[in-house]
C-alpha cells in the first residue's frame, strides 16, 4: 500500500516558540515580504502559530496552535483549480505544481484554513542572502500560489537514499523541517497507512481532533487537545 503522510500536533506540548516558522522559511525558500507588504497581509508563512485569548483579567488564558496546510483528504482547493496545479498525489499530499499554476487564486479562497499563499511580487533576496536558498526547492515566481508541501523534497531525498541502500524507509526517517525543529516534540510526522508508526498511534488518541472538522475536509493533521 502506498504511503499516506500525516502529522500529529500535540497542543499540550506546543510552547508557541515558532521554531517551526523559521525552520519552514529556511527549508522552503520562503521570501521575506518586508514591512510594507507584511502590513498588507502578504507575509508568507506556510506554518503559522494561531493564538487566542480567553477570559478577563486576571483569569486569562492563552491558547495557540500551529497551522500548516492540513493536507486534507477531501481538499476543497483541489477540484477548483482549472489547471490541475493543485492536485492530490498518490501519497495523499495536496501538491501544488508551480509551473502549472496560472494564479486564479481560487484554491486559496476555497481553503477553509487560509493555508495557501500567493506570490504577489517576484521574490527577491538581498545579496548574499540568496546563498542560503535550498537547492532542492524551487523559487516561486510572481503570480503563482504556494503552500506547505510537508517538505516533500525531504521525503524524496530520504526515499532515494533508502532505495540506494536497498532498504525500506524507517518510521521517523522523514520529517518536515517544522517537525524536525520542534523543541518540545509537539509535532510528529509519518505514514498514516502504517499502523505501527508513531503518527498513526498518536492520531488515534482520544485527545485527537481535526481543525474545522465540520467543513468535511478530512485533514491529515490531527491536533491533540490541550488538557487544561
Amino acid at each position: 500500500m502506498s504511503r499516506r503522510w500525516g502529522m500529529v500536533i500535540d497542543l499540550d506540548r506546543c510552547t508557541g516558540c515558532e521554531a517551526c516558522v523559521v525552520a519552514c522559511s529556511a527549508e522552503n525558500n520562503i521570501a521575506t515580504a518586508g514591512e510594507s507588504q507584511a502590513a498588507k497581509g502578504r507575509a508568507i508563512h506556510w506554518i503559522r502559530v494561531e493564538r487566542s485569548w480567553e477570559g478577563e483579567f486576571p483569569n486569562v488564558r492563552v491558547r495557540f496552535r500551529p497551522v500548516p496546510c492540513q493536507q486534507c483528504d477531501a481538499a476543497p482547493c483541489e477540484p477548483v483549480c482549472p489547471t490541475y496545479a493543485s492536485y492530490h498525489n498518490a501519497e495523499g499530499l495536496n501538491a501544488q505544481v508551480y509551473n502549472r499554476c496560472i494564479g486564479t487564486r481560487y484554491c486559496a479562497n476555497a481553503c477553509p484554513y487560509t493555508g495557501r499563499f500567493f506570490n504577489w511580487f517576484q521574490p527577491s533576496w538581498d545579496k548574499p542572502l540568496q546563498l542560503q536558498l535550498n537547492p532542492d526547492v524551487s523559487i516561486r515566481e510572481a503570480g503563482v500560489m504556494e503552500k506547505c508541501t510537508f517538505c516533500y523534497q525531504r521525503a524524496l531525498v530520504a526515499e532515494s537514499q533508502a532505495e540506494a541502500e536497498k532498504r525500506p524507509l524507517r518510521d521517523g526517517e522523514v520529517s518536515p523541517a517544522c517537525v524536525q525543529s520542534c523543541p518540545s516534540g509537539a509535532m510528529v510526522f509519518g505514514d498514516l497507512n502504517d499502523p505501527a508508526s508513531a503518527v498513526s498511534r498518536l492520531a488515534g488518541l482520544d485527545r485527537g481532533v481535526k481543525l474545522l472538522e465540520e467543513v468535511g475536509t478530512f485533514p491529515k493533521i490531527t491536533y491533540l487537545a490541550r488538557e487544561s
Partner: protein
Amino acid sequence: MTTRERQRLEAAPQDRDRLTRDLLRPVLHTSPRIYLTMMALGAFVLAGLVAFVYQAYWGMGVSGLNRPVFWGFYITNFVFWIGISHAGTLISAILRLANARWRRPVTRCAEAITVFALVIGASFPIIHLGRPWLFFWLIPYPSERGIWPNFRSPLLWDFCAITTYLTGSLAFLLLPIIPDWATLRDRAIGWRKKLYRVLALGWRGTPREWHRLEMAMRIMAVVIIPVAVSVHTIVSWDFAMVPVPMWHSTVFGPYFVAGAIFSGIAALIIAMALLRKILHLEEYLKPIHFDHLGKLLLVMSLLWVYFIVAERLTVWYGNATPEVAVLLATQRGKFLPLFWTMVCCNFLIPFPILAIKRLRTITGTVIASSTIVVGMWLERFLIVVPSLEFKYLPFSWGNYRPSWVEITITLATFAAMPLLYLLFVKFVPIISMWELKGGEHPEPAAAAELAPGHEASDPWEGTLPSAGS
C-alpha cells in the same frame, strides 16, 4: 392598440424612407462631439490597459488584494458585467419568442449590450490571473503531455459557458444585422461601401434568404435562453461550489440569474435613454418602451428582494458560526454602509418609482436603473469580499482596500462599454431597420408565409397602456 399606435410601431410604408434615413444618419454622419466623447472614453480605456500591463509586469501585488482576500474588484466586475450581459440576449430572445411587438426597436440595442458586456466581463478572469499570459491553459486543447484542464473546476465550466454564450450572442446579434448591412452597402460610398459589401455577406434579399434568417433567429432564440441561464448559474457556482461561508449556498444559481437580468434590464434602459438622446431616436424609442421595461424591472426588483431575504434569513436562523460572522459583518459590521446603500439602490429607491405609474416615465426609469446598476455592483462586491475577509479561522481574517490599479481598470471597463457601443452605433444601425419596417419582404409570397406570426395576437397587447389611444 390603436391603429395609430400600430402604424407608429410598424411604420407606415410612406415613412419607410424617412425611417431608413433616420436610422442610418448615426451610421453615416458623425459629429465632432461624438469623436471627442470617443477620445475621452478611449483615454480611460488606455489608462486601464496601462494599469493592466503594469500589474502583469510587476505582479498582482500592485493591486489591493492580499491574504485572505484573494479576490476583490476584478471578480466583482466579472460577475457584474456577466450579469449586465443578461440584458440583451435573454430579453430579446424571450420577447422574440413571445412575439412582443414593442420589442423591435429594443432588441439590437439589448443584444449589443450582451456582447460587449460579455467581452468585458470575460476579460476580468484573465486580468485577475497571476500569470495572465498562460490563460490559454484553460482551453482544452490536446497536449503532448497529456494534460487537460480540470473539468471539475467551476472556472472551466465558466470558460466553456462564457465562450458558448459569447458565440451564441454574437450570432444572435450579427444575423439580423446582415440585411441592414446590405441596405448600408447599397447607400454608402467609399471605404464604407467596401466594408459593408464584405459584412453583408452577399445578401440579396431573396425569399429564401429571408426565410433562412427567420428560421435561424427562431432557433437561436430558443437555444440562447438555456445558455444564458446556465452562464450566470455557473458564475454563481464559482462561489457556491466552495465551502466558504455565505458562498456555499443552493440559492445562488437562481439568485444570480435574477440579479443578472435585473442589472441587465437596468443597463438596457440607461443605454436606450442615452441612444435616444444622443442619436435623436425619440421617435423610435418611446416612453412606452421604457414603461414596459420599467415594469419588468419592477418584477425583478421584487424578485431580488425575495432572494436576498431568502438567503440571509436562512443563514441567520441556521446560526452557523462562520456564516453568521459574515452575515453580521455585512449587515451590522464594517460593511454596514455598503449593505444598506445596496438595499436602497436596489429596492427602496427604485421600487416606488417603478411601482407608481406616474413616476414610471423615461426619467423615472432611468433614475431607477442608475441606482440599480450601482446597487447591483455593490451586491456583487458584498458577495465576493466579506466572505473572504471573514472566512472561518478568525486568526486569519483580513481587510481589503483596492489600489489605484484596480480602480483604474474598473473605470476603464465602465468607459469601454460606451466606447464599444458608440463604435458599434457607428457601423450598425442600432435599431433594426428591417424589423421595424414590419418584416418587410420584397416578395409577398414569402411574407405571406410568415404572415400568421405577424398576425398573431400580441401577448403584450392587452397590457399596453391606453394612454396612446
